[in-house]
């Protein structure tokens, strides 16, 4: 895709590595600086969505198969953790050990779903993922194991309230950083190349020897594994599981918007999207007691991104900042600074009409 081809022009690989290190360092000390529970609460949820948006991007962004059913994996992970913690009487930080298991269960669910859904393409694929989502939501409301519409409560850890959010925060950070690292690895690997070949032209890729089905399915399963872990962490953090929140149609949209906003199919795009949009949305929700205004704003923002930044902020910026423009910008700035130092602007004299 054009956007990714232009990315190296904007910044070198070492520079982006440095940027990532700085970003991780800033995120790691964030809860030590901002100890306010509201701030760390924002942080935990944002990191969870960062992981999910990157995981969604590993499948949908790289392969071009747009999934609107990732809430199935998120919810599966969440319900697995809720039920397992209750049945096995786990509390405190022991519950965190269930996260990889929750991811594995979500990955297991992804196999049959993928085998059915990945036989179809484009619109039909999107619609069938939506259908899976509604089956999952319906099951959660009606099955006995999920507690139905009365929901499930999770054990509340007996940590001190001042630093209560911190363990969640750092576990979320580990998952998010691991997901981004995985996304970098996949993008640079032969597997990532096969995925992008499928996105650009699946039939031709198959003609060139890409075994499309296993490649697509592997990407979906990896994506589902992370999404399941993130969902499990999320449900432990909020402490309750209700079908309409665990399987929320807005969840898929939020994740897709994050990836689109930053730049679909890039590594940094979903990260940027999550870091900007999730805190913004939580802030809006905090400001307004009614849900509808944030919903209208959310939809309007979505339309603006689609209409004016169709390939996301990063690729559009990368494309706009061509070497020529960069040089002109730099030259312009240098000239401006030189003028300033040569002739410092004279402050207007007192009383002179400006």
């Amino acid at each position: 895709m054009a956007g990714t081809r232009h990315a190296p022009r904007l910044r070198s690989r070492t520079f982006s590595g440095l940027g990532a290190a700085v970003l991780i360092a800033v995120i790691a000390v964030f809860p030590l600086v901002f100890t306010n529970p509201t701030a760390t609460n924002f942080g935990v949820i944002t990191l969870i969505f960062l992981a999910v948006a990157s995981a969604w991007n590993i499948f949908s962004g790289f392969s071009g198969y747009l999934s609107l059913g990732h809430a199935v994996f998120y919810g599966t992970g969440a319900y697995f953790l809720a039920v397992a913690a209750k049945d096995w009487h786990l509390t405190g930080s022991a519950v965190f050990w269930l996260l990889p298991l929750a991811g594995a269960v979500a990955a297991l669910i992804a196999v049959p779903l993928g085998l059915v859904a990945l036989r179809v393409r484009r619109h039909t694929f999107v619609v069938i993922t939506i259908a899976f989502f509604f089956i999952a939501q319906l099951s959660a409301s009606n099955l006995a194991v999920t507690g139905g519409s009365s929901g499930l409560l999770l054990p509340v850890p007996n940590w001190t309230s001042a630093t209560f959010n911190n363990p969640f925060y750092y576990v979320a950070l580990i998952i998010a950083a691991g997901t981004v690292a995985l996304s970098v690895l996949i993008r640079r690997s032969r597997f990532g190349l096969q995925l992008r070949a499928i996105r650009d032209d699946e039939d031709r890729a198959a003609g060139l020897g890409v075994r499309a089905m296993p490649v697509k399915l592997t990407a979906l399963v990896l994506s589902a594994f992370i999404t399941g872990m993130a969902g499990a962490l999320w449900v432990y953090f909020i402490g309750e599981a209700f079908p309409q929140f665990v399987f929320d149609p807005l969840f898929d949209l939020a994740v897709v918007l994050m990836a689109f906003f930053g730049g679909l199919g890039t590594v940094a795009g979903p990260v940027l999207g999550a870091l900007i949009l999730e805190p913004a949305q939580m802030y809006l929700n905090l400001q307004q007691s009614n849900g509808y205004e944030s919903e209208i704003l959310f939809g309007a923002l979505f339309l603006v991104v689609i209409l004016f930044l169709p390939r996301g902020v990063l690729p559009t910026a990368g494309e706009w900042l061509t070497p020529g423009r960069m040089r002109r910008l730099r030259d312009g700035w240098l000239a401006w600074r030189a003028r300033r130092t040569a002739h410092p602007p004279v402050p207007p004299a007192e009383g002179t009409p400006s």
Partner: protein
Amino acid sequence: MASEISRAIAAGILGGSVYALMAVGLTLTFGVLDIINVAQGIFVVLGAYLSYALSVHLHLDLLLGLLITVPAMFIIGLVIYWLFIRPLRGAERTSMTLLACFAVALIIEGVLYREFGSGYVSLNAWYTSASVHIFDFYLADIYLIGFGLAAVAFAAIYLILYRTTFGRAVRATMQNRVAARLIGIDVNRVSALTFGIGTAVTAIGGMVYGAISGGFTPNSGYDLISRLLAIVILAGLGSVGGALVAAIFMTTAEALVDIWQPDWAVAVFYLALVIILTFRPAGIFGQRAVRAQ
């Protein structure tokens, strides 16, 4: 028991015709524009709320109200097409238009919450409470009226598609957009009008839905769109007649399962979809060309 079954079948067929009407809008839009209008569900709810507003504030009869809501929905459809769908071009158009429709749906849902609140409302008229005695069961009059409206709308769509120059242009555009443009068809105009028609029929669907569903909220759009998508995918995208058959089949199956398992009745829709797509990825009536990338 026997009367319950025959009642379920009758309600399934009559109600299914209304779903078919909404689904036809979806399938036409897909055929001409190659987009999936996921806002169709909320359009239906919007149509229902328009009827509700007219009947509450102007005390207008629901059927008379259609004379206002159908043109209103047609214009809303045109505006949405011109503002949000038409500008989207390029390689990622398919997914972009789908997301744009989703965003439009969110905005409409938000506006409906703002105007009408989140409580259930339902449409009432003398014919929603009165019922007729057929064989050994009772059926609300609105089912028959809905069936009649759907039949009229279907006939109108059929006549437009197969007996007018515009309809020929629509079918030509469905077959091959580039070729249609080459022979002088104004593809943009055809697309806009098709989107408008697809939206206008939801005014009828919305009115009947609001009357037979026993109550709706702005949130009902999700349930509706998932059913409609299941219907058009099952039928095969772009197939008008298929949508009718699939809609009646699905609603009848749902009504039958509802007798024994009310909680799981809706699942019939999605399970049927998954099972059929496993064996026939193009849908029952779809052509392979529709699936090709």
